[in-house]
Protein backbone atom coordinates (compact mmCIF):
# COMPACT_ATOMS: atom_id res chain seq x y z
CA UNK A 1 0.00 0.00 0.00
CA UNK A 2 2.79 2.34 0.98
CA UNK A 3 4.53 1.52 -2.27
CA UNK A 4 1.36 2.30 -4.22
CA UNK A 5 1.01 5.68 -2.53
CA UNK A 6 4.64 6.57 -3.23
CA UNK A 7 4.15 5.74 -6.93
CA UNK A 8 1.10 7.92 -7.14
CA UNK A 9 3.01 10.81 -5.67
CA UNK A 10 5.78 10.42 -8.23
CA UNK A 11 5.27 11.66 -11.77
CA UNK A 12 4.93 14.95 -13.52
CA UNK A 13 1.74 15.92 -11.75
CA UNK A 14 3.49 16.11 -8.39
CA UNK A 15 3.86 19.70 -7.26
CA UNK A 16 4.80 21.58 -10.40
CA UNK A 17 6.18 24.94 -9.40
CA UNK A 18 5.28 27.28 -12.18
CA UNK A 19 7.33 30.41 -12.36
CA UNK A 20 9.89 29.27 -9.80
CA UNK A 21 13.56 29.60 -10.73
CA UNK A 22 15.95 26.68 -10.71
CA UNK A 23 17.60 26.70 -7.28
CA UNK A 24 20.37 24.33 -8.29
CA UNK A 25 21.87 26.27 -11.21
CA UNK A 26 25.04 28.34 -10.68
CA UNK A 27 24.58 32.12 -10.75
CA UNK A 28 26.26 32.61 -14.13
CA UNK A 29 24.14 30.04 -15.95
CA UNK A 30 20.69 31.72 -16.15
CA UNK A 31 22.00 34.92 -17.81
CA UNK A 32 24.22 32.93 -20.19
CA UNK A 33 21.33 30.60 -21.10
CA UNK A 34 19.04 33.60 -21.64
CA UNK A 35 21.65 35.18 -23.92
CA UNK A 36 22.01 31.98 -25.99
CA UNK A 37 18.26 31.48 -26.29
CA UNK A 38 17.68 35.15 -27.13
CA UNK A 39 20.30 34.90 -29.89
CA UNK A 40 18.47 31.98 -31.51
CA UNK A 41 15.04 33.56 -31.04
CA UNK A 42 16.05 36.90 -32.57
CA UNK A 43 17.76 35.36 -35.60
CA UNK A 44 15.03 32.75 -36.08
CA UNK A 45 12.42 35.51 -36.16
CA UNK A 46 14.54 37.52 -38.61
CA UNK A 47 15.02 34.53 -40.88
CA UNK A 48 11.28 33.81 -40.81
CA UNK A 49 10.41 37.28 -42.11
CA UNK A 50 8.67 36.56 -45.42
CA UNK A 51 10.45 37.72 -48.56
CA UNK A 52 9.38 37.10 -52.16
CA UNK A 53 12.27 34.67 -52.72
CA UNK A 54 14.18 34.28 -55.95
CA UNK A 55 11.98 36.22 -58.38
CA UNK A 56 13.04 36.58 -62.02
CA UNK A 57 11.32 38.03 -65.10
CA UNK A 58 11.27 34.48 -66.50
CA UNK A 59 9.23 33.30 -63.51
CA UNK A 60 6.92 36.30 -63.62
CA UNK A 61 6.15 35.63 -67.28
CA UNK A 62 4.79 32.16 -66.51
CA UNK A 63 1.03 31.94 -67.12
CA UNK A 64 -0.03 31.70 -63.44
CA UNK A 65 2.30 34.49 -62.34
CA UNK A 66 1.40 36.71 -65.30
CA UNK A 67 -2.29 36.36 -64.40
CA UNK A 68 -1.40 37.30 -60.81
CA UNK A 69 0.58 40.32 -62.03
CA UNK A 70 -2.35 41.52 -64.12
CA UNK A 71 -4.66 41.15 -61.11
CA UNK A 72 -2.34 43.39 -59.08
CA UNK A 73 -2.18 45.97 -61.90
CA UNK A 74 -5.99 46.05 -61.87
CA UNK A 75 -6.14 46.34 -58.07
CA UNK A 76 -3.57 49.17 -58.03
CA UNK A 77 -5.48 50.89 -60.79
CA UNK A 78 -8.58 50.70 -58.59
CA UNK A 79 -6.60 52.41 -55.83
CA UNK A 80 -5.64 55.18 -58.23
CA UNK A 81 -2.10 53.96 -58.94
CA UNK A 82 -1.52 53.57 -62.67
CA UNK A 83 1.29 51.23 -63.59
CA UNK A 84 2.25 49.12 -66.61
CA UNK A 85 2.50 45.33 -66.00
CA UNK A 86 6.16 45.14 -67.10
CA UNK A 87 7.04 48.18 -65.01
CA UNK A 88 5.44 46.60 -61.92
CA UNK A 89 7.15 43.27 -62.68
CA UNK A 90 10.60 44.90 -62.91
CA UNK A 91 9.99 46.83 -59.68
CA UNK A 92 9.02 43.56 -57.95
CA UNK A 93 12.09 41.71 -59.27
CA UNK A 94 14.38 44.51 -58.02
CA UNK A 95 12.60 44.66 -54.64
CA UNK A 96 12.82 40.87 -54.20
CA UNK A 97 16.53 40.92 -55.05
CA UNK A 98 17.21 43.71 -52.54
CA UNK A 99 15.18 42.05 -49.79
CA UNK A 100 16.90 38.69 -50.33
CA UNK A 101 20.31 40.40 -50.13
CA UNK A 102 19.39 42.17 -46.90
CA UNK A 103 17.96 39.02 -45.37
CA UNK A 104 21.01 36.95 -46.27
CA UNK A 105 23.26 39.48 -44.57
CA UNK A 106 21.10 39.88 -41.48
CA UNK A 107 20.67 36.16 -40.78
CA UNK A 108 24.29 35.26 -41.55
CA UNK A 109 25.18 34.58 -37.87
CA UNK A 110 22.65 31.74 -37.64
CA UNK A 111 23.31 30.49 -41.18
CA UNK A 112 25.77 27.65 -40.37
CA UNK A 113 23.48 26.18 -37.68
CA UNK A 114 20.49 26.28 -40.03
CA UNK A 115 22.52 24.78 -42.86
CA UNK A 116 23.82 21.88 -40.76
CA UNK A 117 20.49 21.06 -39.17
CA UNK A 118 18.35 22.04 -42.19
CA UNK A 119 16.18 24.23 -39.98
CA UNK A 120 15.74 27.26 -42.23
CA UNK A 121 12.76 29.36 -41.23
CA UNK A 122 10.92 29.80 -44.51
CA UNK A 123 7.22 28.99 -44.29
CA UNK A 124 5.71 29.64 -47.69
CA UNK A 125 2.78 27.20 -47.48
CA UNK A 126 0.52 27.55 -50.53
CA UNK A 127 1.69 31.17 -50.78
CA UNK A 128 0.28 31.37 -54.28
CA UNK A 129 -2.41 28.79 -55.05
CA UNK A 130 -1.51 27.03 -58.28
CA UNK A 131 -4.14 27.73 -60.90
CA UNK A 132 -2.31 25.42 -63.32
CA UNK A 133 -1.89 22.17 -61.38
CA UNK A 134 -0.38 18.94 -62.67
CA UNK A 135 -1.38 15.26 -62.74
CA UNK A 136 1.04 12.39 -63.14
CA UNK A 137 0.40 10.10 -66.10
CA UNK A 138 2.02 6.73 -66.77
CA UNK A 139 1.32 5.09 -70.11
CA UNK A 140 2.65 1.72 -71.28
CA UNK A 141 2.78 0.48 -74.82
CA UNK A 142 2.05 -3.17 -75.57
CA UNK A 143 3.13 -3.87 -79.16
CA UNK A 144 1.86 -0.48 -80.28
CA UNK A 145 -1.31 -0.52 -78.21
CA UNK A 146 -1.16 2.17 -75.53
CA UNK A 147 -2.70 1.74 -72.13
CA UNK A 148 -2.90 4.33 -69.37
CA UNK A 149 -1.73 2.63 -66.17
CA UNK A 150 -1.92 5.64 -63.89
CA UNK A 151 -3.34 9.10 -63.83
CA UNK A 152 -3.58 11.15 -60.64
CA UNK A 153 -7.08 11.11 -59.14
CA UNK A 154 -8.38 8.57 -61.64
CA UNK A 155 -10.37 5.65 -60.23
CA UNK A 156 -9.92 3.80 -63.50
CA UNK A 157 -6.15 4.18 -63.87
CA UNK A 158 -4.85 3.72 -60.34
CA UNK A 159 -1.83 1.44 -60.66
CA UNK A 160 0.32 1.95 -57.51
CA UNK A 161 -1.77 4.95 -56.46
CA UNK A 162 -0.72 4.73 -52.80
CA UNK A 163 2.96 4.97 -53.73
CA UNK A 164 2.46 8.04 -55.94
CA UNK A 165 0.34 9.67 -53.22
CA UNK A 166 3.05 9.15 -50.60
CA UNK A 167 4.33 12.62 -49.71
CA UNK A 168 8.01 11.77 -50.06
CA UNK A 169 7.52 10.34 -53.55
CA UNK A 170 5.09 13.08 -54.61
CA UNK A 171 7.76 15.70 -54.07
CA UNK A 172 10.07 13.91 -56.49
CA UNK A 173 7.77 14.36 -59.49
CA UNK A 174 5.37 17.24 -58.79
CA UNK A 175 6.90 20.01 -60.90
CA UNK A 176 6.91 23.75 -60.76
CA UNK A 177 5.86 25.71 -63.81
CA UNK A 178 9.42 26.40 -64.90
CA UNK A 179 11.07 23.04 -64.50
CA UNK A 180 10.65 19.51 -63.16
CA UNK A 181 12.31 18.63 -59.84
CA UNK A 182 15.90 17.40 -60.03
CA UNK A 183 14.63 13.99 -58.99
CA UNK A 184 12.10 13.74 -61.85
CA UNK A 185 14.33 11.81 -64.27
CA UNK A 186 15.37 9.32 -61.59
CA UNK A 187 11.75 8.90 -60.54
CA UNK A 188 10.64 8.32 -64.14
CA UNK A 189 13.46 5.81 -64.70
CA UNK A 190 12.56 3.83 -61.55
CA UNK A 191 8.85 3.84 -62.41
CA UNK A 192 9.59 2.59 -65.93
CA UNK A 193 11.67 -0.24 -64.42
CA UNK A 194 8.68 -1.14 -62.20
CA UNK A 195 6.38 -1.21 -65.23
CA UNK A 196 8.74 -3.40 -67.27
CA UNK A 197 9.03 -5.80 -64.36
CA UNK A 198 5.31 -6.03 -63.65
CA UNK A 199 4.15 -6.05 -67.28
CA UNK A 200 6.46 -8.39 -69.25
CA UNK A 201 4.62 -7.50 -72.49
CA UNK A 202 5.17 -3.77 -72.17
CA UNK A 203 7.80 -2.53 -74.61
CA UNK A 204 7.63 1.21 -73.96
CA UNK A 205 6.75 3.45 -71.01
CA UNK A 206 5.85 7.13 -71.29
CA UNK A 207 5.79 9.20 -68.13
CA UNK A 208 4.52 12.75 -68.23
CA UNK A 209 2.77 15.50 -66.29
CA UNK A 210 -0.61 16.76 -67.50
CA UNK A 211 -1.15 20.43 -66.74
CA UNK A 212 -4.71 21.76 -66.52
CA UNK A 213 -6.16 25.19 -65.78
CA UNK A 214 -8.40 25.89 -62.79
CA UNK A 215 -10.73 28.86 -63.21
CA UNK A 216 -12.82 30.43 -60.48
CA UNK A 217 -16.59 29.82 -60.47
CA UNK A 218 -18.34 32.27 -62.76
CA UNK A 219 -15.30 32.57 -65.05
CA UNK A 220 -15.18 30.77 -68.44
CA UNK A 221 -13.87 27.21 -68.09
CA UNK A 222 -10.61 26.27 -69.78
CA UNK A 223 -10.66 22.58 -70.81
CA UNK A 224 -7.14 22.58 -72.29
CA UNK A 225 -4.67 20.06 -70.91
CA UNK A 226 -1.00 20.29 -71.80
CA UNK A 227 1.34 17.30 -71.60
CA UNK A 228 4.70 18.36 -70.21
CA UNK A 229 7.94 16.82 -69.00
CA UNK A 230 7.51 13.73 -71.19
CA UNK A 231 10.03 10.94 -70.61
CA UNK A 232 9.98 7.84 -72.82
CA UNK A 233 11.67 4.56 -71.99
CA UNK A 234 11.98 1.46 -74.16
CA UNK A 235 12.44 -1.97 -72.65
CA UNK A 236 16.13 -2.61 -72.13
CA UNK A 237 17.48 -5.51 -74.19
CA UNK A 238 18.19 -8.41 -71.89
Amino acid at each position, binding site marked *: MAKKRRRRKAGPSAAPVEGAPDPSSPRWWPPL*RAAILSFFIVFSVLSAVPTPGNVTMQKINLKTNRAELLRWVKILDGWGIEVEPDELAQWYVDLAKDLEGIKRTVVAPIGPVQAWTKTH*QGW*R*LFGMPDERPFSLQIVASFGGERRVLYRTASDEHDWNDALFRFRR*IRGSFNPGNLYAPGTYDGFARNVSAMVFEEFPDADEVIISMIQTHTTLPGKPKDPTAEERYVRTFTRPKS
Partner: protein
Amino acid sequence: MKRFVQRIVAAFDERESPTALVLIRVLLATVMLSDLLWIGYFGVSDWLWAPVSEGGISPAVHQNPPVIYQWFGLDAGTATLIYVVLLVSITMFGVGCFTRTSGLVFVFVYAQSAMANDYGDRGIDRAVRVVMLILSFSAAGAAYSFDAWRKTGSWRGDGKPVPAWPRFLVLGQLVLLYCAAGFSKGGTLWFPWGGYGALYVILQDPIYAKMSFAFLEHPVLYFFTQVGTGITHTWEMGAPVVLLAAYYRRTAERGGFMRRWFERLRVRDVYVFIGVGFHLSLAVTMYLGIFPWAMLAFFPAFFRPEEIEGFGARVKARLRRH
Protein backbone atom coordinates in the same frame (compact mmCIF):
# COMPACT_ATOMS: atom_id res chain seq x y z
CA MET B 1 16.41 48.01 -19.95
CA LYS B 2 18.00 46.29 -16.97
CA ARG B 3 14.57 45.25 -15.69
CA PHE B 4 13.63 43.93 -19.13
CA VAL B 5 16.78 41.80 -19.25
CA GLN B 6 16.15 40.57 -15.71
CA ARG B 7 12.63 39.55 -16.69
CA ILE B 8 13.89 37.58 -19.69
CA VAL B 9 16.54 35.82 -17.57
CA ALA B 10 13.89 34.98 -14.97
CA ALA B 11 11.42 33.70 -17.59
CA PHE B 12 13.99 31.33 -19.08
CA ASP B 13 14.85 30.16 -15.55
CA GLU B 14 11.31 29.08 -14.73
CA ARG B 15 10.42 25.49 -14.04
CA GLU B 16 7.26 23.52 -14.61
CA SER B 17 6.01 19.95 -14.84
CA PRO B 18 7.35 18.16 -17.96
CA THR B 19 3.88 16.96 -19.02
CA ALA B 20 3.56 19.18 -22.12
CA LEU B 21 7.06 18.31 -23.33
CA VAL B 22 6.47 14.61 -22.73
CA LEU B 23 3.24 14.74 -24.69
CA ILE B 24 4.90 16.51 -27.62
CA ARG B 25 7.75 13.98 -27.53
CA VAL B 26 5.41 10.98 -27.69
CA LEU B 27 3.02 12.44 -30.28
CA LEU B 28 5.78 13.69 -32.56
CA ALA B 29 7.69 10.41 -32.38
CA THR B 30 4.51 8.50 -33.24
CA VAL B 31 3.86 10.69 -36.30
CA MET B 32 7.45 10.43 -37.52
CA LEU B 33 7.58 6.70 -36.89
CA SER B 34 4.47 6.19 -39.01
CA ASP B 35 6.04 8.26 -41.82
CA LEU B 36 9.20 6.15 -41.70
CA LEU B 37 7.21 2.92 -41.61
CA TRP B 38 5.51 3.97 -44.86
CA ILE B 39 8.96 4.34 -46.43
CA GLY B 40 9.68 0.77 -45.33
CA TYR B 41 6.30 -0.47 -46.54
CA PHE B 42 6.85 0.97 -50.02
CA GLY B 43 10.53 -0.04 -49.96
CA VAL B 44 11.68 3.35 -51.21
CA SER B 45 14.60 4.20 -48.93
CA ASP B 46 16.93 3.49 -51.89
CA TRP B 47 14.83 5.71 -54.16
CA LEU B 48 15.12 8.55 -51.71
CA TRP B 49 18.71 8.31 -50.51
CA ALA B 50 20.83 5.94 -52.64
CA PRO B 51 23.12 7.26 -55.39
CA VAL B 52 21.52 7.34 -58.86
CA SER B 53 23.82 4.51 -60.01
CA GLU B 54 22.30 2.26 -57.33
CA GLY B 55 18.61 2.96 -57.83
CA GLY B 56 18.39 6.40 -56.24
CA ILE B 57 16.53 9.32 -57.80
CA SER B 58 18.39 12.30 -56.35
CA PRO B 59 21.47 13.55 -58.26
CA ALA B 60 22.49 15.52 -55.14
CA VAL B 61 23.73 12.31 -53.50
CA HIS B 62 26.71 12.05 -55.85
CA GLN B 63 26.93 15.67 -57.01
CA ASN B 64 27.32 17.05 -53.52
CA PRO B 65 27.43 14.10 -51.09
CA PRO B 66 26.46 14.98 -47.51
CA VAL B 67 28.99 14.09 -44.86
CA ILE B 68 27.27 10.82 -43.94
CA TYR B 69 28.17 9.43 -47.40
CA GLN B 70 31.77 10.52 -46.91
CA TRP B 71 31.88 8.55 -43.67
CA PHE B 72 30.03 5.41 -44.73
CA GLY B 73 30.47 5.26 -48.50
CA LEU B 74 28.62 6.50 -51.53
CA ASP B 75 26.37 3.49 -52.00
CA ALA B 76 22.93 2.04 -51.32
CA GLY B 77 24.17 0.67 -47.99
CA THR B 78 24.33 4.22 -46.63
CA ALA B 79 20.72 4.80 -47.73
CA THR B 80 19.70 1.75 -45.72
CA LEU B 81 21.81 2.97 -42.81
CA ILE B 82 20.06 6.37 -42.89
CA TYR B 83 16.70 4.62 -42.80
CA VAL B 84 17.61 2.27 -39.96
CA VAL B 85 19.20 5.02 -37.84
CA LEU B 86 16.15 7.27 -38.33
CA LEU B 87 13.84 4.42 -37.38
CA VAL B 88 15.81 3.38 -34.30
CA SER B 89 16.52 6.91 -33.07
CA ILE B 90 12.90 8.10 -33.36
CA THR B 91 11.68 4.96 -31.57
CA MET B 92 14.19 5.52 -28.77
CA PHE B 93 13.19 9.16 -28.61
CA GLY B 94 9.52 8.22 -28.40
CA VAL B 95 10.00 5.81 -25.51
CA GLY B 96 12.46 8.19 -23.89
CA CYS B 97 15.53 5.96 -24.08
CA PHE B 98 18.62 8.19 -24.00
CA THR B 99 16.16 10.86 -25.10
CA ARG B 100 18.58 13.71 -25.72
CA THR B 101 21.15 11.66 -27.59
CA SER B 102 18.55 9.85 -29.71
CA GLY B 103 16.87 13.20 -30.50
CA LEU B 104 20.14 14.78 -31.61
CA VAL B 105 21.08 11.72 -33.69
CA PHE B 106 17.65 11.83 -35.35
CA VAL B 107 17.98 15.54 -36.19
CA PHE B 108 21.49 15.09 -37.59
CA VAL B 109 20.64 12.08 -39.79
CA TYR B 110 17.31 13.61 -40.81
CA ALA B 111 19.16 16.74 -41.93
CA GLN B 112 21.63 14.57 -43.86
CA SER B 113 18.73 12.83 -45.61
CA ALA B 114 17.31 16.24 -46.52
CA MET B 115 20.65 17.27 -48.01
CA ALA B 116 20.71 14.06 -50.03
CA ASN B 117 17.20 14.58 -51.37
CA ASP B 118 15.78 18.04 -50.85
CA TYR B 119 12.67 17.26 -52.92
CA GLY B 120 11.52 14.59 -50.46
CA ASP B 121 11.90 17.08 -47.62
CA ARG B 122 9.10 19.58 -47.07
CA GLY B 123 8.43 22.51 -44.75
CA ILE B 124 6.95 20.20 -42.15
CA ASP B 125 10.21 18.24 -42.02
CA ARG B 126 12.04 21.46 -41.16
CA ALA B 127 9.47 22.23 -38.47
CA VAL B 128 9.92 18.74 -37.04
CA ARG B 129 13.71 19.19 -36.92
CA VAL B 130 13.36 22.57 -35.16
CA VAL B 131 11.06 21.12 -32.49
CA MET B 132 13.12 17.93 -32.11
CA LEU B 133 16.22 20.06 -31.64
CA ILE B 134 14.49 22.04 -28.90
CA LEU B 135 13.23 18.86 -27.24
CA SER B 136 16.73 17.36 -27.40
CA PHE B 137 17.93 20.12 -25.09
CA SER B 138 14.90 19.77 -22.82
CA ALA B 139 13.74 17.41 -20.11
CA ALA B 140 11.18 15.80 -22.42
CA GLY B 141 12.50 12.43 -21.26
CA ALA B 142 12.03 13.21 -17.56
CA ALA B 143 8.72 11.35 -17.29
CA TYR B 144 6.94 8.43 -18.91
CA SER B 145 10.22 7.21 -20.34
CA PHE B 146 12.91 4.61 -20.08
CA ASP B 147 15.24 7.39 -18.85
CA ALA B 148 12.85 8.22 -15.99
CA TRP B 149 12.70 4.55 -14.99
CA ARG B 150 16.50 4.24 -15.18
CA LYS B 151 17.08 7.32 -13.01
CA THR B 152 14.19 7.16 -10.53
CA GLY B 153 12.86 3.61 -10.62
CA SER B 154 9.47 4.90 -11.82
CA TRP B 155 8.25 5.29 -15.43
CA ARG B 156 6.55 8.48 -14.28
CA GLY B 157 9.78 10.04 -13.05
CA ASP B 158 10.38 11.81 -9.77
CA GLY B 159 7.87 14.59 -10.35
CA LYS B 160 10.46 17.35 -10.05
CA PRO B 161 9.71 20.42 -12.14
CA VAL B 162 11.97 20.94 -15.17
CA PRO B 163 13.03 24.02 -17.17
CA ALA B 164 10.03 25.56 -18.90
CA TRP B 165 11.93 27.39 -21.67
CA PRO B 166 11.71 24.49 -24.19
CA ARG B 167 7.91 24.70 -24.11
CA PHE B 168 8.11 28.48 -24.52
CA LEU B 169 10.35 27.96 -27.56
CA VAL B 170 8.04 25.37 -29.15
CA LEU B 171 5.13 27.75 -28.59
CA GLY B 172 7.16 30.60 -30.09
CA GLN B 173 8.07 28.41 -33.08
CA LEU B 174 4.40 27.60 -33.68
CA VAL B 175 3.46 31.27 -33.59
CA LEU B 176 6.38 32.16 -35.87
CA LEU B 177 5.51 29.42 -38.35
CA TYR B 178 1.82 30.30 -38.63
CA CYS B 179 2.43 34.04 -38.70
CA ALA B 180 5.16 33.78 -41.36
CA ALA B 181 2.98 31.41 -43.40
CA GLY B 182 0.14 33.92 -43.20
CA PHE B 183 2.25 36.88 -44.28
CA SER B 184 3.92 34.80 -47.03
CA LYS B 185 0.58 34.35 -48.71
CA GLY B 186 1.03 37.10 -51.26
CA GLY B 187 -1.27 35.70 -53.94
CA THR B 188 -4.31 37.92 -54.53
CA LEU B 189 -6.59 34.87 -54.12
CA TRP B 190 -5.89 34.99 -50.37
CA PHE B 191 -7.27 38.54 -50.11
CA PRO B 192 -10.74 40.06 -50.32
CA TRP B 193 -9.75 41.92 -53.48
CA GLY B 194 -8.84 38.57 -55.07
CA GLY B 195 -12.25 37.15 -54.14
CA TYR B 196 -10.89 34.83 -51.43
CA GLY B 197 -10.65 32.08 -54.06
CA ALA B 198 -7.51 30.39 -52.67
CA LEU B 199 -9.11 27.43 -50.91
CA TYR B 200 -11.25 26.65 -53.97
CA VAL B 201 -8.20 26.67 -56.25
CA ILE B 202 -6.09 24.56 -53.87
CA LEU B 203 -8.86 21.96 -53.58
CA GLN B 204 -8.95 21.60 -57.38
CA ASP B 205 -5.30 20.44 -57.44
CA PRO B 206 -5.56 16.71 -58.27
CA ILE B 207 -2.23 15.89 -56.66
CA TYR B 208 -3.38 17.20 -53.25
CA ALA B 209 -7.17 16.75 -53.27
CA LYS B 210 -8.51 13.52 -51.77
CA MET B 211 -11.55 13.60 -54.05
CA SER B 212 -13.01 15.73 -56.80
CA PHE B 213 -14.08 19.06 -55.35
CA ALA B 214 -15.59 20.31 -58.60
CA PHE B 215 -18.97 20.52 -56.81
CA LEU B 216 -17.63 23.49 -54.82
CA GLU B 217 -18.35 25.74 -57.80
CA HIS B 218 -21.97 25.85 -56.59
CA PRO B 219 -22.42 29.47 -55.41
CA VAL B 220 -23.41 28.52 -51.84
CA LEU B 221 -20.54 26.06 -51.41
CA TYR B 222 -18.10 28.43 -53.09
CA PHE B 223 -19.13 31.07 -50.57
CA PHE B 224 -18.14 28.68 -47.76
CA THR B 225 -14.70 28.15 -49.34
CA GLN B 226 -14.32 31.94 -49.46
CA VAL B 227 -15.20 32.17 -45.76
CA GLY B 228 -12.72 29.33 -45.11
CA THR B 229 -10.01 31.20 -47.01
CA GLY B 230 -10.62 34.35 -45.00
CA ILE B 231 -10.60 32.51 -41.67
CA THR B 232 -7.46 30.52 -42.54
CA HIS B 233 -5.50 33.58 -43.61
CA THR B 234 -6.63 35.68 -40.64
CA TRP B 235 -6.00 32.79 -38.24
CA GLU B 236 -2.43 32.36 -39.51
CA MET B 237 -1.55 36.05 -39.46
CA GLY B 238 -3.19 36.42 -36.06
CA ALA B 239 -0.94 33.85 -34.38
CA PRO B 240 0.81 36.46 -32.19
CA VAL B 241 -2.43 36.97 -30.21
CA VAL B 242 -1.55 33.70 -28.48
CA LEU B 243 1.63 35.28 -27.14
CA LEU B 244 -0.34 38.34 -26.09
CA ALA B 245 -2.84 36.10 -24.30
CA ALA B 246 0.01 34.34 -22.49
CA TYR B 247 1.51 37.71 -21.50
CA TYR B 248 -1.85 38.96 -20.19
CA ARG B 249 -2.27 35.80 -18.15
CA ARG B 250 1.18 36.19 -16.61
CA THR B 251 0.50 39.78 -15.74
CA ALA B 252 -3.14 39.31 -14.71
CA GLU B 253 -2.59 41.33 -11.51
CA ARG B 254 -2.17 44.50 -13.58
CA GLY B 255 -5.84 44.30 -14.66
CA GLY B 256 -7.25 46.43 -17.45
CA PHE B 257 -9.84 46.24 -20.19
CA MET B 258 -7.83 44.14 -22.66
CA ARG B 259 -6.81 41.54 -20.06
CA ARG B 260 -10.41 41.16 -18.98
CA TRP B 261 -11.60 40.67 -22.57
CA PHE B 262 -8.84 38.22 -23.45
CA GLU B 263 -9.80 36.23 -20.35
CA ARG B 264 -13.53 36.43 -21.03
CA LEU B 265 -13.28 35.55 -24.74
CA ARG B 266 -10.79 32.76 -24.01
CA VAL B 267 -8.72 33.99 -26.95
CA ARG B 268 -6.11 31.25 -26.72
CA ASP B 269 -8.70 28.47 -26.53
CA VAL B 270 -10.57 29.87 -29.53
CA TYR B 271 -7.31 30.09 -31.47
CA VAL B 272 -6.42 26.48 -30.65
CA PHE B 273 -9.95 25.29 -31.43
CA ILE B 274 -9.84 26.88 -34.90
CA GLY B 275 -6.35 25.43 -35.41
CA VAL B 276 -7.46 21.90 -34.56
CA GLY B 277 -10.42 22.27 -36.93
CA PHE B 278 -8.14 23.66 -39.65
CA HIS B 279 -5.66 20.79 -39.43
CA LEU B 280 -8.31 18.09 -39.18
CA SER B 281 -10.05 19.56 -42.26
CA LEU B 282 -6.75 19.41 -44.13
CA ALA B 283 -6.26 15.79 -43.07
CA VAL B 284 -9.73 14.86 -44.32
CA THR B 285 -9.69 16.74 -47.63
CA MET B 286 -6.08 16.70 -48.80
CA TYR B 287 -3.09 14.40 -49.25
CA LEU B 288 -0.61 16.36 -47.17
CA GLY B 289 1.14 13.43 -45.52
CA ILE B 290 2.25 14.08 -41.96
CA PHE B 291 1.69 17.83 -42.11
CA PRO B 292 -1.59 18.12 -40.17
CA TRP B 293 -0.64 15.42 -37.65
CA ALA B 294 2.86 16.72 -36.95
CA MET B 295 1.52 20.24 -36.48
CA LEU B 296 -1.13 18.95 -34.05
CA ALA B 297 1.63 17.08 -32.20
CA PHE B 298 3.16 20.50 -31.36
CA PHE B 299 -0.14 21.80 -29.95
CA PRO B 300 0.41 20.74 -26.29
CA ALA B 301 2.87 23.66 -26.19
CA PHE B 302 -0.14 26.00 -26.21
CA PHE B 303 -1.11 24.75 -22.75
CA ARG B 304 0.44 24.96 -19.31
CA PRO B 305 1.25 21.49 -17.92
CA GLU B 306 -1.33 21.76 -15.13
CA GLU B 307 -4.02 22.46 -17.73
CA ILE B 308 -3.11 19.26 -19.59
CA GLU B 309 -2.99 17.30 -16.33
CA GLY B 310 -6.35 18.76 -15.27
CA PHE B 311 -7.87 17.80 -18.61
CA GLY B 312 -6.43 14.28 -18.29
CA ALA B 313 -7.82 13.95 -14.77
CA ARG B 314 -11.28 15.09 -15.92
CA VAL B 315 -11.30 12.58 -18.79
CA LYS B 316 -10.17 9.83 -16.42
CA ALA B 317 -12.88 10.69 -13.89
CA ARG B 318 -15.55 10.72 -16.59
CA LEU B 319 -14.39 7.36 -17.94
CA ARG B 320 -14.48 5.92 -14.44
CA ARG B 321 -18.07 7.10 -13.98
CA HIS B 322 -19.27 5.33 -17.17
